[in-house]
């Protein structure tokens, strides 16, 4: 019935997270999810019964119509073909699926998508984006990734974990200063000091990418990996960060992977992998995040306290 399809369509409102594989443009992800939703639910509902049209049929059996004497016309209801699905086409052509914070083709990770009314909430700016950056010492390329054209090769024997940690601390210090500047508080006041101590400072309005947390998870030369918490970032900035870390250590480094592990309340555990990009799993995921979506819509921004408390727990 058409009503069933319409009811399903109205139910599909909300946010869900998807794990974007590396090497795939985010638009392809969005398109394939849209077509899966259309195929799986809306256009698989049985079409409505064809409408009946009234036709007047002559009951007289004379060959020559002009000479027939008794002309009895009877109305009959005949189904029309004008409403056949092969003539009208599929009931639903489009489902509004929007992407919140894009990931470029080289990166992978959590990608939040909104369906229907969720599109209004999907672009809400969270503070916490967690990334895991994989790097490799010894080369420099033109686009900061390991697939680009190699420009320079260096040695990296002198690099130790201690030196790396020192460089990371220096970078984090610079970012803290930027954070204080862009949060537009005067640090000489008591309130600002207390906020800073509790770690509740955040940048207001437009700001360049600021790292709020940076640490080294894994060090196995030439490979190493960093965990970053940042705001207002682009993935290219993060790859450039790896390059700069290499420069600070008097060697060079390329980024071999950028993985977003968290986008606000959506973590890697909640993200759907490729085999689950079907209509049923998506609807389940939307239902699962229903409360979170409502909270985001009401507060206008994901609750600051929860995010920053999560930040503090990490440190």
């Amino acid at each position: 019935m058409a009503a069933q399809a319409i009811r399903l369509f109205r139910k599909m409102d909300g946010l869900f997270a998807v794990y974007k594989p590396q090497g795939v443009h985010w638009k392809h992800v969005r398109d394939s999810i849209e077509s899966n939703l259309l195929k799986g639910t809306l256009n698989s509902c049985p079409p409505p019964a064809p409408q009946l049209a009234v036709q007047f049929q002559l009951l007289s059996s004379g060959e020559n119509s002009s000479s027939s004497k008794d002309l009895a016309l009877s109305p009959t209801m005949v189904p029309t073909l004008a409403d056949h699905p092969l003539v009208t086409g599929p009931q639903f052509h489009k489902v509004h699926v929007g992407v919140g914070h894009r990931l470029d083709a080289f990166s992978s990770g959590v990608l939040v998508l909104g369906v229907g009314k969720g599109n209004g909430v999907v672009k809400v700016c969270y503070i916490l984006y967690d990334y895991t950056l994989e790097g490799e010492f010894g080369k420099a390329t033109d686009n900061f990734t390991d697939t680009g054209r190699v420009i320079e090769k260096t040695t990296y024997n002198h690099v130790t974990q201690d030196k790396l940690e020192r460089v990371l601390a220096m970078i984090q210090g610079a970012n803290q200063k930027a954070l204080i500047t862009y949060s537009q508080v005067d640090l000489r006041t008591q309130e600002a000091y207390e906020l800073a101590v509790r770690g509740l400072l955040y940048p207001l309005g437009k700001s360049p990418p600021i790292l709020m947390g940076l640490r080294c998870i894994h060090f196995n030369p030439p490979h190493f990996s960093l965990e970053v918490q940042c705001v207002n970032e682009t993935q290219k900035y993060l790859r450039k960060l790896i390059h700069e870390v290499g420069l600070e250590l008097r060697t060079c480094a390329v980024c071999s992977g950028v993985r977003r592990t968290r986008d606000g309340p959506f973590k890697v555990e909640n993200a759907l992998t490729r085999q689950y990009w079907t209509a049923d799993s998506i609807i389940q995921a939307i239902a699962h995040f229903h409360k979170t979506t409502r909270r985001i819509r009401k507060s206008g921004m994901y609750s600051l306290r929860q995010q920053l408390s999560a930040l503090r727990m990490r440190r």
Partner: protein
Amino acid sequence: MHVCQRCVSLLLSRPLSAAGQQSTRALHQRSHLILLQHSTRQPPVHRLSQGHSRETWRHFTDHQAASPDVSNKTDLTQKEVVPLNSDVHQISSQVTLSDSQSIDLDVAVRASPLQEVSEEEAVQIQVPSALPPESSTLRPYVDKSETLSKLVQLGVNLWELEQRPNVGSMLVRLDFHADVAPRLLFLKDLGVEESKLGRLLTKNPFILTESLDNLEARVSYLKSKKFSKQSVAVMVTKAPYLLNFSVERLDNRLGFFQKQLGLSAEKTRDVVTRLPKLLCGSLEPIKENLKVCELEFGFRGNEMQHIVTTVPKVLIANKRKLTQIFDFIHNTMDVPHSLIAKFPQVLNAKFLRIRERHLFLEYLGRAQYQPSQPNYISLDRLVFLPDDVFCSEVALATLEDFERFQKTL
């Protein structure tokens, strides 16, 4: 896309198939046709039957009286109360006389709408058809046109066809008995199943405008090249545009494949039956793909032949994707040419799938692709098993582990 006015008028003028159905619409259309034929020459002469009342004659005479031909007036006014039959002939002769002198289009019989009319008259009154002269969809015409309704019953997707430019107008113009039915019978004789006809016509509606002689010539050409009747039917089903190509073109392509690939006639026939699209498309991308396989990948002649006979799709695959897959398999997974030639199906698989599975096996330490070593995993098992079977048998891990690993890539 507009179904043009000319087509609509053609549609209206063509009487619907009898099928014993005497609906009033058919009557209207026949009288409409007559109207079209007559209106070009003379002022409309209504076909009046015997049951016509006398008042209209008086109206007619009054109108005639209003004409500038004063000489005829006196004759007409005298002839008021006369038997009807003779009346008709005389008045029509009067009309022709007046025609020769001057054509006055205002002198037309207009019956008053409030006059009582007999049943037969009521039935014969033509109602202007509600069909729009132009439309961007085929919906208004489906019920009225026999061709379109039969096509819908066959399973042709008219909605898809009307998106293509000019196809809708072409379909409305077709006559079922003259154009469509002979070609459908021809396809059925060829061996194409009825359930597949709908899809075939949706992909290629132009088969309905191709001349039957050409179609038969092409089929006989294919049969002369020793393609069996079944294989011809299969080829036409898989590649709907096949029979729209000329015999020279088909011949050219078959010759190219036989020469270039160096295959025997039997094998060429087999390859072409499995992938008849090869005969339809241009040869340039195929030549490029062959060059890529030979020069970039470094496959030898006999390996190439084996690959093409096993997986003909390699010839029309996307060059970039093919290169990506081959690069990964040969350089990252370290699989030699001979093994790839043995399992050419991997070149047809999705790159992401190969990549994820290989990295999972590498993480588990089970990535062994040499047949001589223990725990050997063949390439086709790597790629073509479904996920759960792959996890349980090849990787010896659970599906959840695989998913968790996918999220770390």
